[in-house]
């Protein structure tokens, strides 16, 4: 009876430890090309979004590359510290199926589709609290995200 209590307490400690320990997504091997990197970023940021929303996230990344205010490469934009939550929570490292929707979305974005007409920022209005991001001018809303410049 007492022993069971001990086990429960121990299990709680372990549980607490797992919760506080930063999770790690699976790593994959092999060279990651532009399409792959873009697709992983889209996967991490807009997985449940409508297709248009996924292409839009890809387009925002490419718009940043072309803009003077951001790094000049896809990797530079994606890995800029603090820019994308998919990087800080490890989602960017989740391997994706080459036939998945996010890869098609990345290809469309690279081929020039831009449902955001040049936006550089996006945020989820339900969860974003940053005053700064809310000061961006909204151009369009797709799925869960506002897109702005």
């Amino acid at each position, binding site marked *: *009876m*007492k*022993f069971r*209590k*001990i086990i429960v*307490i*121990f299990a709680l*400690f372990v549980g607490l*430890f797992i919760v506080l320990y*930063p999770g790690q997504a699976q790593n994959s091997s092999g060279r990651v090309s532009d399409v792959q990197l873009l697709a992983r970023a889209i996967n991490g940021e807009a997985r449940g979004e*409508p*297709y*248009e929303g996924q*292409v839009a996230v890809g387009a925002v990344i490419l718009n940043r590359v*072309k803009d*003077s*205010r*951001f*790094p*000049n490469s896809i990797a*530079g*934009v994606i890995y*800029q*510290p*603090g*820019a994308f939550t998919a990087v*800080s929570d490890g989602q960017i490292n989740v391997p994706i199926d080459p*036939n998945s*929707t996010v*890869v*098609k*979305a990345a*290809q*469309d974005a690279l*081929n*020039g*589709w*831009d*449902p*955001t*007409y*040049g*936006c550089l*920022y996006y945020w989820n209005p339900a969860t974003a*609290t*940053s*005053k*700064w*991001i809310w000061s961006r*001018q*909204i*151009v*369009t*809303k*797709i799925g869960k995200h506002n897109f702005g*410049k």
Partner: protein
Amino acid sequence: MDYDEKEYILENRRERRVSEHERDESPGYHARNKAKNVVIAILALTTLFGAYQYHRAVLLRRQLDAQYNRAFYEMTGYVQDMEVLLSKAMLTSSPQKAADILKDIWHRAELVSTNLGQLPVQQGALVNTQKFISQVGDYAKTLNGQNVKGQVMNQDQMDTIKSLHQYAVSLNDNLDKFHGELSAGTMKWENLAGGGAKLFSKSDVEVPMSISNIDGTFEEMPTLIYDGPFSEHMTNQKALGLSGENVSEDQAIENLGKLFGKENIRNIQKVSDNKNGVIDTYNFSFELEGKKEKSVAEADVSVVGGRVVWFLYNRDVGDVELDIDKAKEIGKQFLEKSGFKNMRDTYYTEQQGVATINYAYEQDGVTVYADLVKVKVALDNGEIVGFESKGYLMSHRERDIPTPVLSEAEALRKVARKENIVSTGLAIIPTDYGSELFCYEFKGKLDDQDFLVYINAITGEEEDILLIINSEEGILTM
């Protein structure tokens, strides 16, 4: 009553022994003891584990800080270089030397930019600094191109360089102050936010004064306009190909119906109005009846003129039945139905059973590449699954095409590999700063490499060289 002390003591001892004995014999005493020891052991292990993790975290923090410090020091070093070089650019009289200096400024700017992009600052905290660096580098590159041809900088350009130099001086001062705080230990990288678990943070971390001072250096910087992709004029483009009246939502839906067949569109809903972008549009989501099972499609129709700007229909694609030539034909027919006349196909890619074909406008035999439309054709049944015309709508107009100053033969003489040329044509190509160049287009093959050379039909200058990459995903078609 008399109490025998000795008896009292013996009595106590006996009682203690009895109670100890009782205690020992009470159920669970050993188990409790054991349990206590187990808990102590677990707590000890957890503490050790915690100490180990903490130590590890300290080491990782140190490594991370070292990286940020490296990026910061490299960045400030290059900004100092830029200040000196901008100064020298104002002092030299020889265009060749100026070209050298400007090339160095451009090079340093790229290095500053790369390192700046590695610092853990909040979104938006250093955007103006990044913009300044990008524009200075870009401007220096443009001036370098000019000086390399022997053309000296004019007074306006000299004044701009002087102004940019002043800004570089201010930037250095502010970076120095930030550096002071770093060295003194009053500023730590982890205070700048931008990373790490924010379990309890509810709002912005305030941007430190020294960071906002750095970015504030450029608050009053005048706009820079020149022939480069980061020039200010590139952010204010207008859609030249859009004309006509504003259309209502219903008219927009009707126009979609004309393209895809009204009877094929089901459950059409307007998702949003897009304003503040380069083209104001209505965004629609709808279901398409086709030969395949229903799936959601999305499209944007412009408010001005009711043109379909883009269309995307993501569905599973079956086995490939059509070849690329048939796909090109289907694409061309779709374009004619949509009101795009005189388009010729130029480049295509084939990915996962869908062909994405690029079409350029042709005027009097001249291929106008800036007026670009893309069509996605599904290769299982020839259905149109994608369409993109923003490029065309931004730049299309009837152009005043001059007669070439050089003849084809004269232009050919300017090509390095003239013996390898396979075909010739005329084209209008876009520059990366929003203007257009009228050129002869020579297609050739050297060893196994296909290439394109563009010779300016007015000045005879070699404007661009393109390599044609033949991959399993696509080929240039001309």
